[in-house]
């Protein structure tokens, strides 16, 4: 956002996190990684805030207060989902009383008719203060994104050829007579 290139005031919103990430946010303000030199200041009231540092996997109990807090921040706002719990729900992403991070929250917001704000994901458990600062600079458009989706698909040709060799190898050893099909045996190892 151009408006926040020089100064960004940040509000810390903890929706049930283990406060590992909350301490790293404060570390970003500590002398070693002084965020104030980049114009970042932690403010106490959401009215003063431009961006929300969102941590925690949004537990069911915290939902009303979280929704009320997000609505309390005035409009041109950015949400930084800090930490594994916020980005993807962390270890307890599929627990019965957790909404699974920021995506779960946005589903509730959509059902309430509120448009989800612009979001930056900062993974890490807990993310280093430098990673948080990199996220903030990315949000303000001052730093490039070092992370990209990478996909690798094995070429079909050699794989199919290798499969035929193996089939030929098998047919070479066990020619012709094939045993009748037996009942399907359920293997014990559960796999999720």
């Amino acid at each position, binding site marked *: 956002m151009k408006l926040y290139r020089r100064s960004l005031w940040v509000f810390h919103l903890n929706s049930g996190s283990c406060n590992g990430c909350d301490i790293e946010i404060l570390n970003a303000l500590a002398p070693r990684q002084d965020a104030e030199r980049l114009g970042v200041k932690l403010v106490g009231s959401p009215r003063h805030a431009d961006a929300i540092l969102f941590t925690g996997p949004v537990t069911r109990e915290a939902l009303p*207060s979280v929704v009320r807090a997000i609505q309390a921040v005035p409009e041109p706002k950015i949400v930084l989902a800090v930490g594994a719990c916020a980005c993807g729900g962390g270890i*307890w992403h599929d*627990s*019965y009383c957790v909404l699974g991070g920021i995506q779960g929250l946005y589903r*509730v917001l959509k059902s309430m008719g509120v448009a989800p704000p612009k979001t930056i994901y900062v993974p890490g458990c807990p993310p280093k203060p430098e990673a948080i600062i990199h996220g903030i600079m990315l949000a303000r458009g001052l730093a490039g994104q070092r992370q990209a989706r990478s996909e690798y698909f094995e070429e079909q040709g050699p794989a199919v050829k290798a499969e035929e060799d193996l089939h030929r190898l098998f047919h070479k050893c066990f020619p012709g007579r094939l045993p009748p099909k037996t009942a399907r045996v359920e293997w014990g190892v559960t796999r999720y």
Partner: protein
Amino acid sequence: MRSSGINQVRPRNKYELMIDLRRFGEPRLRGKYLFLSRIKSGRLRDLVDYLHWRLGGYYSTSIGVDERPLDGYFHVYHVFVLEEYGVYVLVDLIADPGHPVVESITPVVPAANWAEREIMDFIGVKFRGHPEPHRLILPDDWPENVYPLRKDYPYDDKLPTSDKIAKLVRESSPATWEPEAPGDHTVIPVGPYHPALHEPEYFELFVEGEKIVDARYKGFMVHRGIEKIAESRLSYNQVSFIAERICGICGFTHSTAYCQAVEEAAGIDVPERAEYIRSILLEIERIHSHFLWMGVAFHLLGYDTGFMIMWRLRESIMDLAEELTGSRKMYGANIVGGIRDKWDIRDDKAALIKRMLDEIREEYLKYIPKIISLEEIKKRTRGVGVLSRSDARKYSVLGPHARASGIKTDVRKYRPYAAYKYVNVEIPVLDDGDIYARMIVRHEEILASIDLIHRLLDNIPKTPLHADTSYIPERRHGIGCTEAPRGEDLHFVITGRDNKLYRWRPRAPTYNNLLSVPAMLRGEYLADAPIIIASIDPCFSCTDHVVVVDLRSGRRRPLRTRGVVGGR
């Protein structure tokens, strides 16, 4: 209720204790655990009274287990710690699934109030005679007879978030004519997102002018269903990672306690080098946590320079941790049976630790004596938020909070675990119980920890890093206790089949200290509320599953602290 008349001579050791307990039920002794099952009808409360009040043991916690797949019953274990005999007494009550009702022990031991209500929430066992049989932890709109910790309940079953929550957010109560009730003070919500508290806990302060008339702690859920996930999806070693993420500050204490519990249950003896490394990392974490607390305390007193100094020192501790374990906070070194291979502390690392610790101590001693003697720090902390020794015992507070009020409790000294067996630990104890005393206790503990690490590093033995944990027997009970930076941390484990736990329950120290906060807040200035709340160094993600009653829906009566805490 005291059972009088049994003027029998006190049992001298655990074997005599076992024989003595035969009058209440069938005792079975295995190592440090004395199981008491098939309690004679009507003798439960006498037993609890005998254990808790007469033998000088103290009630630790209660655990509800759904053992229907094993023996077709719900089990409720009440855990009593008898340090004198060095034994954990587990009172095992059985409730049949058809009509799950068990007699409550809260009238005798008020501290059991919450643990029993948690069992009601999660297992569905009703407690006859319980003073406040209301829901404790589960959110407001949780359906009535759905009990998450039962085996038949799928762990990832997502209940739809009812529109009630959306209404809760939008609803603004109309201004209704209500005459001003006498007790009608202004309510100042030191709420979930108050800048003084970086965790979502929630205190309601009743204020008259600038003075706090009354304070009420309303449970704010950081409940993430850890126990259910551990039972259903994670294997033994994976649970130690979720244990570490119960709390971002004292994570390693939790994973160590968990691993010790499983090792106790399975009878694995951990090689000495692993125990030494565990103790070293525990002490590093204690220093880190105390530095953090000091910084936050100075910030709340308005002295930001102190906050910056403390957190600058803390950075070097976190760099040290990063060198040793690869991550600033989540060390991830623990697996059942010892330490993971890559986390070994070889000689170059030992030299690095010593050098860094000396640097930190020298710099720390340059600042702290001056800061503590500052005039306005003294004026804002001396005599503020006082917790007398009798109150401390009444609310059974733990850790530095108790040591500042004159109670000598420390798991490292009185029930040594890991490498504390081989090293003696001296603990600072003060009597005047105000915030200043807590600050001094934590200051002393930092220095004591630094010496402790030096001594541990000097005589670290050369043994393999972890024991063989291929076979873990089924259905064994185990209790692991450690001294977290905030107090005694207790994990109860029942081992299960197929490399998975059957039941796991962590109990964190903060929920004992938490009870004393409303008592300390009463009568103080509003400006001192944040520093008083922070003085017990609350870590609410630790207490996620045992957290106090929520007031919002009429159904749940507000927790009147006076009512709950009789007890020791």
